[in-house]
Protein backbone atom coordinates (compact mmCIF):
# COMPACT_ATOMS: atom_id res chain seq x y z
CA UNK A 1 0.00 0.00 0.00
CA UNK A 2 2.82 2.41 0.93
CA UNK A 3 4.69 1.34 -2.21
CA UNK A 4 1.65 2.09 -4.34
CA UNK A 5 1.37 5.55 -2.75
CA UNK A 6 5.04 6.11 -3.57
CA UNK A 7 4.48 6.28 -7.30
CA UNK A 8 1.38 8.38 -6.92
CA UNK A 9 3.48 11.56 -7.10
CA UNK A 10 5.13 10.34 -10.29
CA UNK A 11 1.70 9.63 -11.77
CA UNK A 12 0.65 13.22 -11.10
CA UNK A 13 3.91 14.54 -12.57
CA UNK A 14 3.44 12.51 -15.73
CA UNK A 15 -0.07 13.72 -16.28
CA UNK A 16 1.05 17.31 -15.78
CA UNK A 17 3.61 16.89 -18.58
CA UNK A 18 1.09 15.51 -21.07
CA UNK A 19 -1.54 18.06 -20.08
CA UNK A 20 0.96 20.86 -20.58
CA UNK A 21 1.82 19.55 -24.04
CA UNK A 22 -1.85 19.26 -24.88
CA UNK A 23 -2.74 22.75 -23.66
CA UNK A 24 0.25 24.48 -25.28
CA UNK A 25 -0.16 22.72 -28.63
CA UNK A 26 -3.91 23.22 -28.63
CA UNK A 27 -3.34 26.93 -27.93
CA UNK A 28 -1.20 27.27 -31.06
CA UNK A 29 -3.60 25.16 -33.15
CA UNK A 30 -6.52 27.39 -32.15
CA UNK A 31 -4.49 30.55 -32.86
CA UNK A 32 -3.76 29.15 -36.33
CA UNK A 33 -7.42 28.39 -36.98
CA UNK A 34 -8.36 31.92 -35.88
CA UNK A 35 -5.85 33.32 -38.35
CA UNK A 36 -3.13 34.56 -36.00
CA UNK A 37 0.42 34.04 -37.15
CA UNK A 38 2.75 32.66 -34.52
CA UNK A 39 6.41 31.83 -34.62
CA UNK A 40 5.86 28.46 -33.03
CA UNK A 41 3.45 25.92 -34.42
CA UNK A 42 1.25 23.42 -32.65
CA UNK A 43 2.90 20.46 -34.32
CA UNK A 44 6.29 19.70 -35.77
CA UNK A 45 4.75 17.62 -38.58
CA UNK A 46 5.63 18.38 -42.19
CA UNK A 47 2.68 17.34 -44.39
CA UNK A 48 4.94 15.43 -46.75
CA UNK A 49 3.57 15.15 -50.28
CA UNK A 50 2.33 18.74 -50.21
CA UNK A 51 5.06 20.30 -48.11
CA UNK A 52 8.61 19.20 -48.53
CA UNK A 53 11.47 19.60 -46.20
CA UNK A 54 14.39 21.63 -47.50
CA UNK A 55 17.26 19.35 -48.38
CA UNK A 56 20.72 20.30 -47.14
CA UNK A 57 23.07 21.41 -49.89
CA UNK A 58 25.46 18.54 -49.15
CA UNK A 59 22.69 15.92 -49.22
CA UNK A 60 23.52 13.04 -51.57
CA UNK A 61 20.50 12.75 -53.86
CA UNK A 62 20.00 11.51 -57.43
CA UNK A 63 23.13 11.57 -59.64
CA UNK A 64 23.54 13.80 -62.64
CA UNK A 65 26.15 13.91 -65.38
CA UNK A 66 27.66 17.32 -66.02
CA UNK A 67 27.89 18.73 -69.54
CA UNK A 68 30.62 20.62 -71.35
CA UNK A 69 29.94 23.99 -72.93
CA UNK A 70 28.94 22.27 -76.17
CA UNK A 71 26.46 19.95 -74.48
CA UNK A 72 28.47 16.73 -74.52
CA UNK A 73 29.07 14.87 -71.23
CA UNK A 74 32.21 15.82 -69.36
CA UNK A 75 32.94 12.19 -68.62
CA UNK A 76 36.20 10.89 -70.14
CA UNK A 77 35.56 7.22 -69.24
CA UNK A 78 38.47 6.93 -66.83
CA UNK A 79 36.51 4.14 -65.05
CA UNK A 80 37.43 5.49 -61.61
CA UNK A 81 33.80 5.63 -60.51
CA UNK A 82 33.21 2.10 -61.75
CA UNK A 83 36.24 0.91 -59.82
CA UNK A 84 35.41 2.67 -56.59
CA UNK A 85 31.71 1.82 -56.52
CA UNK A 86 31.16 -0.54 -53.56
CA UNK A 87 27.86 -1.87 -54.83
CA UNK A 88 29.07 -2.21 -58.42
CA UNK A 89 26.12 -0.41 -59.88
CA UNK A 90 27.87 1.73 -62.51
CA UNK A 91 28.53 0.43 -66.00
CA UNK A 92 30.37 2.58 -68.55
CA UNK A 93 31.32 1.84 -72.16
CA UNK A 94 33.71 4.12 -74.06
CA UNK A 95 33.59 5.35 -77.63
CA UNK A 96 36.23 7.30 -79.51
CA UNK A 97 35.81 11.01 -79.76
CA UNK A 98 37.15 12.73 -82.91
CA UNK A 99 38.48 15.59 -80.77
CA UNK A 100 42.08 14.64 -79.79
CA UNK A 101 41.81 16.75 -76.65
CA UNK A 102 39.00 14.54 -75.31
CA UNK A 103 39.75 11.15 -76.93
CA UNK A 104 37.01 9.17 -75.18
CA UNK A 105 33.37 9.76 -74.42
CA UNK A 106 30.81 7.42 -72.81
CA UNK A 107 28.53 5.71 -75.31
CA UNK A 108 26.78 3.89 -72.46
CA UNK A 109 26.62 5.20 -68.90
CA UNK A 110 24.34 3.20 -66.61
CA UNK A 111 23.68 3.60 -62.89
CA UNK A 112 21.51 0.90 -61.38
CA UNK A 113 19.72 2.84 -58.64
CA UNK A 114 18.19 -0.32 -57.21
CA UNK A 115 21.72 -1.30 -56.16
CA UNK A 116 23.19 2.15 -55.45
CA UNK A 117 23.79 2.82 -51.77
CA UNK A 118 24.31 6.59 -52.21
CA UNK A 119 27.75 6.57 -50.62
CA UNK A 120 28.97 9.28 -53.00
CA UNK A 121 32.36 7.64 -53.64
CA UNK A 122 31.85 7.96 -57.41
CA UNK A 123 31.46 11.71 -57.06
CA UNK A 124 34.60 11.99 -54.98
CA UNK A 125 36.58 9.76 -57.36
CA UNK A 126 35.67 11.68 -60.51
CA UNK A 127 38.70 13.72 -61.71
CA UNK A 128 36.65 15.66 -64.28
CA UNK A 129 33.81 16.70 -61.94
CA UNK A 130 31.54 14.97 -64.43
CA UNK A 131 29.32 13.25 -61.86
CA UNK A 132 27.48 15.07 -59.10
CA UNK A 133 24.78 14.12 -56.60
CA UNK A 134 23.19 17.50 -56.07
CA UNK A 135 19.88 17.32 -57.96
CA UNK A 136 17.87 17.32 -54.75
CA UNK A 137 15.62 14.59 -56.13
CA UNK A 138 14.95 11.93 -53.54
CA UNK A 139 11.75 10.41 -54.89
CA UNK A 140 12.52 7.88 -57.60
CA UNK A 141 10.37 4.91 -56.68
CA UNK A 142 9.36 2.78 -59.67
CA UNK A 143 7.07 -0.16 -60.26
CA UNK A 144 9.73 -2.40 -61.83
CA UNK A 145 13.43 -2.97 -61.29
CA UNK A 146 14.18 -2.22 -64.95
CA UNK A 147 12.90 1.32 -64.48
CA UNK A 148 15.43 1.84 -61.70
CA UNK A 149 18.30 1.49 -64.19
CA UNK A 150 19.15 5.01 -65.29
CA UNK A 151 20.97 5.44 -68.59
CA UNK A 152 22.92 8.31 -70.12
CA UNK A 153 19.87 10.24 -71.37
CA UNK A 154 18.15 10.08 -68.00
CA UNK A 155 21.24 11.03 -66.05
CA UNK A 156 22.32 13.96 -68.18
CA UNK A 157 18.91 15.69 -68.14
Amino acid at each position, binding site marked *: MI*KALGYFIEIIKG*SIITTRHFVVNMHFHILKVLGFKTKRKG*AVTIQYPEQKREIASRHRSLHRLMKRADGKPRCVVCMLCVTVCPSECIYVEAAEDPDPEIQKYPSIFIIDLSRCCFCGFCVEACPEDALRMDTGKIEFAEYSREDMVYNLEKLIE
Partner: protein
Amino acid sequence: MNELIIILIKIICALVWFLLLTLYLTWAERKESAVIQDRIGANRASILGIRIIGLFQPFADAIKMIFKEDFTPRFSRRFLHTLAPFLSFFFVAITITAIPFGDVLKIGKQTIKLQILDINVGLLFVLAMLSLGIYGIIVSGWASNNRYALVGGMRGAAQLVSYEVALGLSLVGLIMVFPSLRLSEIVHAQGGLLFGFLPKWGIFLQPLGLLVFFFAALAETKRVPFDLPEGENEIVGFFTEYSGLKWGLFMMTDFMEIIIVSALLTTLFFGGWQVPWLAADGFHFPWGGQWLLPHGIVVLLQVLSFNMKVIFFCWLQILIRWTYPRFRYDQVMDLGWKLLIPLSLVNIIGTGIVMSF
Protein backbone atom coordinates in the same frame (compact mmCIF):
# COMPACT_ATOMS: atom_id res chain seq x y z
CA MET B 1 -49.34 3.41 -28.13
CA ASN B 2 -48.10 6.93 -27.52
CA GLU B 3 -45.83 5.64 -24.77
CA LEU B 4 -44.38 3.04 -27.10
CA ILE B 5 -43.53 5.61 -29.76
CA ILE B 6 -41.87 7.85 -27.17
CA ILE B 7 -39.82 4.94 -25.85
CA LEU B 8 -38.79 3.97 -29.39
CA ILE B 9 -37.72 7.54 -30.17
CA LYS B 10 -35.77 7.66 -26.91
CA ILE B 11 -34.00 4.37 -27.70
CA ILE B 12 -33.10 5.52 -31.21
CA CYS B 13 -31.83 8.88 -29.97
CA ALA B 14 -29.75 7.31 -27.20
CA LEU B 15 -28.25 4.69 -29.51
CA VAL B 16 -27.40 7.24 -32.19
CA TRP B 17 -25.81 9.46 -29.54
CA PHE B 18 -23.87 6.50 -28.15
CA LEU B 19 -22.64 5.15 -31.47
CA LEU B 20 -21.75 8.55 -32.91
CA LEU B 21 -19.84 9.45 -29.78
CA THR B 22 -18.07 6.06 -29.97
CA LEU B 23 -17.11 6.61 -33.60
CA TYR B 24 -15.83 10.09 -32.95
CA LEU B 25 -14.01 8.95 -29.85
CA THR B 26 -11.77 6.82 -32.09
CA TRP B 27 -10.99 9.97 -34.03
CA ALA B 28 -10.61 12.05 -30.88
CA GLU B 29 -8.23 9.51 -29.42
CA ARG B 30 -5.96 9.74 -32.45
CA LYS B 31 -6.15 13.52 -32.53
CA GLU B 32 -5.60 13.97 -28.82
CA SER B 33 -2.64 11.63 -28.75
CA ALA B 34 -1.23 13.55 -31.70
CA VAL B 35 -1.60 16.89 -29.96
CA ILE B 36 0.03 15.50 -26.83
CA GLN B 37 2.95 14.22 -28.88
CA ASP B 38 3.37 17.40 -31.00
CA ARG B 39 1.93 15.73 -34.10
CA ILE B 40 -1.14 16.48 -36.22
CA GLY B 41 -2.89 13.14 -36.41
CA ALA B 42 -5.42 11.69 -38.80
CA ASN B 43 -6.43 14.49 -41.18
CA ARG B 44 -6.43 12.92 -44.64
CA ALA B 45 -9.79 11.15 -44.94
CA SER B 46 -11.78 13.21 -47.41
CA ILE B 47 -15.07 13.23 -49.25
CA LEU B 48 -14.76 14.85 -52.70
CA GLY B 49 -11.51 16.47 -51.67
CA ILE B 50 -13.01 18.14 -48.61
CA ARG B 51 -11.22 17.19 -45.43
CA ILE B 52 -12.30 18.99 -42.30
CA ILE B 53 -9.45 18.10 -39.94
CA GLY B 54 -10.11 14.43 -40.69
CA LEU B 55 -13.68 14.33 -39.42
CA PHE B 56 -14.55 11.62 -41.96
CA GLN B 57 -11.89 9.30 -40.57
CA PRO B 58 -14.26 7.19 -38.41
CA PHE B 59 -16.43 6.43 -41.42
CA ALA B 60 -13.43 5.47 -43.49
CA ASP B 61 -12.33 3.18 -40.66
CA ALA B 62 -15.80 1.66 -40.41
CA ILE B 63 -15.96 0.96 -44.16
CA LYS B 64 -12.52 -0.61 -44.05
CA MET B 65 -13.53 -2.78 -41.09
CA ILE B 66 -16.70 -3.99 -42.81
CA PHE B 67 -14.90 -5.04 -45.98
CA LYS B 68 -12.02 -6.79 -44.25
CA GLU B 69 -11.93 -10.56 -44.34
CA ASP B 70 -13.77 -12.11 -41.42
CA PHE B 71 -11.50 -15.02 -40.69
CA THR B 72 -12.30 -17.80 -38.23
CA PRO B 73 -9.45 -20.25 -37.66
CA ARG B 74 -10.16 -23.89 -38.43
CA PHE B 75 -9.46 -24.92 -34.83
CA SER B 76 -11.81 -22.36 -33.25
CA ARG B 77 -15.29 -23.10 -31.98
CA ARG B 78 -17.25 -21.34 -34.66
CA PHE B 79 -20.47 -20.54 -32.83
CA LEU B 80 -18.90 -19.24 -29.63
CA HIS B 81 -16.21 -17.47 -31.62
CA THR B 82 -18.92 -15.49 -33.42
CA LEU B 83 -21.00 -14.99 -30.30
CA ALA B 84 -18.25 -13.52 -28.09
CA PRO B 85 -17.88 -10.04 -29.64
CA PHE B 86 -21.64 -9.63 -29.74
CA LEU B 87 -21.89 -10.58 -26.06
CA SER B 88 -19.28 -8.02 -25.13
CA PHE B 89 -20.87 -5.36 -27.34
CA PHE B 90 -24.43 -6.03 -26.20
CA PHE B 91 -23.73 -5.86 -22.47
CA VAL B 92 -22.02 -2.51 -22.83
CA ALA B 93 -24.55 -1.07 -25.25
CA ILE B 94 -27.48 -1.96 -22.98
CA THR B 95 -26.13 0.05 -20.04
CA ILE B 96 -27.03 3.29 -21.81
CA THR B 97 -30.70 2.61 -21.03
CA ALA B 98 -30.28 3.50 -17.35
CA ILE B 99 -28.28 6.71 -17.79
CA PRO B 100 -30.34 9.90 -17.29
CA PHE B 101 -29.55 12.47 -19.98
CA GLY B 102 -31.65 15.18 -18.41
CA ASP B 103 -34.65 15.92 -16.27
CA VAL B 104 -38.22 15.79 -17.59
CA LEU B 105 -39.18 17.48 -20.83
CA LYS B 106 -42.71 18.87 -20.92
CA ILE B 107 -44.41 19.07 -24.30
CA GLY B 108 -47.99 20.21 -23.82
CA LYS B 109 -49.46 17.86 -21.24
CA GLN B 110 -46.96 15.12 -21.88
CA THR B 111 -43.95 14.82 -19.57
CA ILE B 112 -41.06 12.85 -21.00
CA LYS B 113 -38.25 11.59 -18.82
CA LEU B 114 -34.96 12.00 -20.64
CA GLN B 115 -33.91 8.49 -19.68
CA ILE B 116 -34.93 5.28 -21.41
CA LEU B 117 -35.56 3.10 -18.36
CA ASP B 118 -35.99 4.67 -14.94
CA ILE B 119 -35.63 1.43 -12.99
CA ASN B 120 -35.30 1.47 -9.22
CA VAL B 121 -32.09 -0.59 -9.34
CA GLY B 122 -30.49 1.50 -12.07
CA LEU B 123 -27.03 1.58 -10.50
CA LEU B 124 -26.98 -2.15 -9.85
CA PHE B 125 -28.23 -2.76 -13.37
CA VAL B 126 -25.37 -0.78 -14.91
CA LEU B 127 -22.76 -2.48 -12.71
CA ALA B 128 -24.23 -5.91 -13.42
CA MET B 129 -24.21 -5.36 -17.16
CA LEU B 130 -20.63 -4.12 -17.05
CA SER B 131 -19.68 -7.26 -15.13
CA LEU B 132 -21.46 -9.50 -17.61
CA GLY B 133 -19.20 -7.99 -20.26
CA ILE B 134 -16.49 -10.24 -18.81
CA TYR B 135 -18.25 -13.17 -20.48
CA GLY B 136 -17.38 -11.67 -23.85
CA ILE B 137 -13.72 -11.79 -22.89
CA ILE B 138 -13.72 -15.29 -21.43
CA VAL B 139 -15.81 -16.74 -24.25
CA SER B 140 -13.62 -15.15 -26.90
CA GLY B 141 -10.50 -16.50 -25.23
CA TRP B 142 -12.00 -19.95 -24.83
CA ALA B 143 -13.63 -20.19 -28.25
CA SER B 144 -10.48 -19.10 -30.07
CA ASN B 145 -8.99 -22.40 -28.90
CA ASN B 146 -5.62 -20.74 -28.89
CA ARG B 147 -3.56 -21.07 -25.73
CA TYR B 148 -2.38 -17.47 -25.75
CA ALA B 149 -5.90 -16.17 -26.31
CA LEU B 150 -7.18 -18.35 -23.48
CA VAL B 151 -4.47 -17.10 -21.12
CA GLY B 152 -5.26 -13.54 -22.21
CA GLY B 153 -8.94 -14.09 -21.56
CA MET B 154 -8.24 -15.54 -18.12
CA ARG B 155 -5.94 -12.62 -17.32
CA GLY B 156 -8.71 -10.25 -18.36
CA ALA B 157 -11.30 -12.06 -16.30
CA ALA B 158 -9.06 -12.08 -13.22
CA GLN B 159 -8.37 -8.36 -13.53
CA LEU B 160 -11.96 -7.39 -14.16
CA VAL B 161 -13.37 -9.56 -11.38
CA SER B 162 -10.92 -8.18 -8.84
CA TYR B 163 -11.62 -4.59 -9.81
CA GLU B 164 -15.34 -5.26 -9.75
CA VAL B 165 -15.04 -5.59 -5.97
CA ALA B 166 -13.43 -2.18 -5.56
CA LEU B 167 -15.87 -0.69 -8.06
CA GLY B 168 -18.87 -1.93 -6.12
CA LEU B 169 -17.50 -1.08 -2.68
CA SER B 170 -16.49 2.44 -3.68
CA LEU B 171 -20.11 3.20 -4.51
CA VAL B 172 -21.52 1.99 -1.19
CA GLY B 173 -20.61 5.27 0.50
CA LEU B 174 -22.34 7.16 -2.27
CA ILE B 175 -25.49 5.07 -1.90
CA MET B 176 -25.42 5.81 1.83
CA VAL B 177 -25.27 9.56 1.18
CA PHE B 178 -27.91 9.67 -1.55
CA PRO B 179 -30.11 6.87 -0.26
CA SER B 180 -31.27 5.44 -3.57
CA LEU B 181 -30.18 3.11 -6.34
CA ARG B 182 -32.36 4.89 -8.88
CA LEU B 183 -29.97 6.94 -11.00
CA SER B 184 -32.45 9.75 -11.62
CA GLU B 185 -32.99 10.11 -7.86
CA ILE B 186 -29.24 10.19 -7.22
CA VAL B 187 -28.96 13.04 -9.73
CA HIS B 188 -31.94 14.84 -8.16
CA ALA B 189 -30.35 14.51 -4.73
CA GLN B 190 -27.26 16.27 -6.06
CA GLY B 191 -29.29 19.36 -6.93
CA GLY B 192 -29.12 20.87 -3.45
CA LEU B 193 -26.49 23.17 -2.01
CA LEU B 194 -23.72 22.46 0.45
CA PHE B 195 -22.82 25.23 2.96
CA GLY B 196 -25.19 27.46 1.00
CA PHE B 197 -23.08 27.86 -2.14
CA LEU B 198 -21.37 24.62 -3.20
CA PRO B 199 -23.44 22.32 -5.43
CA LYS B 200 -24.12 19.12 -3.53
CA TRP B 201 -22.27 16.91 -5.97
CA GLY B 202 -20.84 13.53 -5.16
CA ILE B 203 -17.27 14.77 -5.57
CA PHE B 204 -17.64 17.04 -2.51
CA LEU B 205 -19.39 14.41 -0.41
CA GLN B 206 -17.38 11.37 -1.49
CA PRO B 207 -13.89 12.45 -2.65
CA LEU B 208 -12.28 9.17 -1.60
CA GLY B 209 -15.08 7.18 -3.19
CA LEU B 210 -14.54 9.13 -6.42
CA LEU B 211 -10.82 8.33 -6.40
CA VAL B 212 -11.37 4.61 -5.87
CA PHE B 213 -14.23 4.49 -8.35
CA PHE B 214 -12.19 6.30 -10.99
CA PHE B 215 -9.20 3.96 -10.71
CA ALA B 216 -11.39 0.85 -10.62
CA ALA B 217 -13.39 2.10 -13.59
CA LEU B 218 -10.18 2.78 -15.52
CA ALA B 219 -9.21 -0.83 -14.90
CA GLU B 220 -12.66 -1.94 -16.02
CA THR B 221 -12.26 -0.23 -19.39
CA LYS B 222 -9.08 -2.32 -19.84
CA ARG B 223 -7.16 0.44 -21.56
CA VAL B 224 -3.52 1.24 -21.35
CA PRO B 225 -2.44 1.60 -17.76
CA PHE B 226 -4.47 -1.57 -17.18
CA ASP B 227 -4.52 -3.15 -20.64
CA LEU B 228 -3.21 -6.55 -19.61
CA PRO B 229 -6.17 -8.45 -21.08
CA GLU B 230 -5.34 -7.42 -24.62
CA GLY B 231 -1.83 -5.95 -24.52
CA GLU B 232 -1.85 -4.83 -28.13
CA ASN B 233 1.85 -4.62 -28.66
CA GLU B 234 3.65 -7.36 -26.82
CA ILE B 235 1.60 -9.66 -24.60
CA VAL B 236 -0.91 -11.65 -26.62
CA GLY B 237 -4.48 -10.92 -25.70
CA PHE B 238 -7.91 -12.50 -25.90
CA PHE B 239 -8.90 -11.27 -29.36
CA THR B 240 -5.83 -12.55 -31.15
CA GLU B 241 -7.90 -14.78 -33.42
CA TYR B 242 -10.34 -12.06 -34.44
CA SER B 243 -10.34 -9.95 -37.56
CA GLY B 244 -12.58 -7.63 -39.49
CA LEU B 245 -15.89 -6.58 -38.03
CA LYS B 246 -15.70 -8.90 -35.03
CA TRP B 247 -12.45 -7.31 -33.95
CA GLY B 248 -14.06 -3.95 -34.65
CA LEU B 249 -16.85 -4.82 -32.22
CA PHE B 250 -14.29 -5.52 -29.49
CA MET B 251 -12.62 -2.20 -30.19
CA MET B 252 -15.95 -0.38 -30.17
CA THR B 253 -16.77 -2.06 -26.86
CA ASP B 254 -13.65 -0.51 -25.41
CA PHE B 255 -14.64 2.96 -26.51
CA MET B 256 -18.23 2.46 -25.39
CA GLU B 257 -16.93 1.47 -21.97
CA ILE B 258 -15.06 4.76 -21.81
CA ILE B 259 -18.29 6.61 -22.50
CA ILE B 260 -20.24 4.55 -19.99
CA VAL B 261 -17.60 5.11 -17.33
CA SER B 262 -17.64 8.83 -18.08
CA ALA B 263 -21.43 8.86 -17.95
CA LEU B 264 -21.39 7.00 -14.62
CA LEU B 265 -18.77 9.34 -13.18
CA THR B 266 -20.86 12.28 -14.29
CA THR B 267 -24.10 10.85 -12.97
CA LEU B 268 -22.78 9.71 -9.62
CA PHE B 269 -20.11 12.24 -8.70
CA PHE B 270 -20.54 15.32 -10.87
CA GLY B 271 -24.24 15.98 -10.64
CA GLY B 272 -25.33 14.32 -13.88
CA TRP B 273 -27.35 16.83 -15.85
CA GLN B 274 -27.32 19.36 -12.99
CA VAL B 275 -25.93 22.79 -13.75
CA PRO B 276 -24.80 24.58 -10.59
CA TRP B 277 -27.61 26.74 -9.15
CA LEU B 278 -29.97 25.92 -12.05
CA ALA B 279 -33.43 24.93 -10.82
CA ALA B 280 -36.42 23.96 -12.96
CA ASP B 281 -37.36 27.61 -13.58
CA GLY B 282 -33.94 29.23 -13.97
CA PHE B 283 -30.82 30.19 -12.09
CA HIS B 284 -31.01 31.01 -8.38
CA PHE B 285 -27.65 32.34 -7.34
CA PRO B 286 -26.51 31.87 -3.73
CA TRP B 287 -25.41 35.52 -3.53
CA GLY B 288 -28.96 36.58 -4.25
CA GLY B 289 -30.56 37.37 -7.53
CA GLN B 290 -32.09 35.02 -10.03
CA TRP B 291 -32.31 34.63 -13.77
CA LEU B 292 -35.50 32.96 -14.91
CA LEU B 293 -35.38 30.92 -18.10
CA PRO B 294 -38.07 29.20 -20.19
CA HIS B 295 -38.48 25.44 -19.78
CA GLY B 296 -36.98 24.50 -23.15
CA ILE B 297 -33.74 26.34 -22.49
CA VAL B 298 -33.41 24.81 -19.03
CA VAL B 299 -33.74 21.30 -20.49
CA LEU B 300 -31.27 22.18 -23.23
CA LEU B 301 -28.79 23.48 -20.66
CA GLN B 302 -29.17 20.31 -18.62
CA VAL B 303 -28.56 18.00 -21.60
CA LEU B 304 -25.63 20.16 -22.70
CA SER B 305 -24.16 20.06 -19.21
CA PHE B 306 -24.39 16.26 -19.16
CA ASN B 307 -22.74 16.02 -22.56
CA MET B 308 -19.95 18.44 -21.67
CA LYS B 309 -19.14 16.50 -18.53
CA VAL B 310 -19.14 13.18 -20.38
CA ILE B 311 -16.88 14.57 -23.10
CA PHE B 312 -14.53 16.03 -20.49
CA PHE B 313 -14.14 12.65 -18.78
CA CYS B 314 -13.62 10.94 -22.13
CA TRP B 315 -10.86 13.48 -22.76
CA LEU B 316 -9.37 12.78 -19.35
CA GLN B 317 -9.37 9.04 -19.91
CA ILE B 318 -7.70 9.41 -23.31
CA LEU B 319 -5.11 11.67 -21.68
CA ILE B 320 -4.43 8.98 -19.08
CA ARG B 321 -4.19 6.31 -21.77
CA TRP B 322 -1.51 8.33 -23.60
CA THR B 323 0.44 9.24 -20.48
CA TYR B 324 1.16 6.09 -18.55
CA PRO B 325 2.94 2.86 -19.36
CA ARG B 326 1.28 -0.45 -18.64
CA PHE B 327 1.30 -1.81 -15.10
CA ARG B 328 2.95 -5.13 -14.43
CA TYR B 329 0.41 -7.84 -13.60
CA ASP B 330 1.34 -8.08 -9.92
CA GLN B 331 1.20 -4.29 -9.66
CA VAL B 332 -2.31 -4.32 -11.07
CA MET B 333 -3.37 -6.93 -8.55
CA ASP B 334 -1.61 -5.11 -5.71
CA LEU B 335 -3.30 -1.86 -6.61
CA GLY B 336 -6.67 -3.55 -6.75
CA TRP B 337 -6.61 -5.75 -3.69
CA LYS B 338 -4.17 -3.99 -1.38
CA LEU B 339 -4.92 -0.32 -2.05
CA LEU B 340 -8.30 0.26 -3.64
CA ILE B 341 -10.35 -2.24 -1.64
CA PRO B 342 -9.00 -1.14 1.78
CA LEU B 343 -9.50 2.49 0.74
CA SER B 344 -13.08 1.82 -0.26
CA LEU B 345 -13.71 0.05 3.07
CA VAL B 346 -12.21 3.03 4.90
CA ASN B 347 -14.51 5.23 2.86
CA ILE B 348 -17.57 3.24 3.88
CA ILE B 349 -16.62 3.37 7.57
CA GLY B 350 -15.77 7.07 7.38
CA THR B 351 -19.02 7.88 5.64
CA GLY B 352 -20.91 5.93 8.28
CA ILE B 353 -19.18 7.77 11.15
CA VAL B 354 -19.80 11.17 9.59
CA MET B 355 -23.43 10.34 8.85
CA SER B 356 -24.16 9.04 12.37
CA PHE B 357 -23.38 12.47 13.85
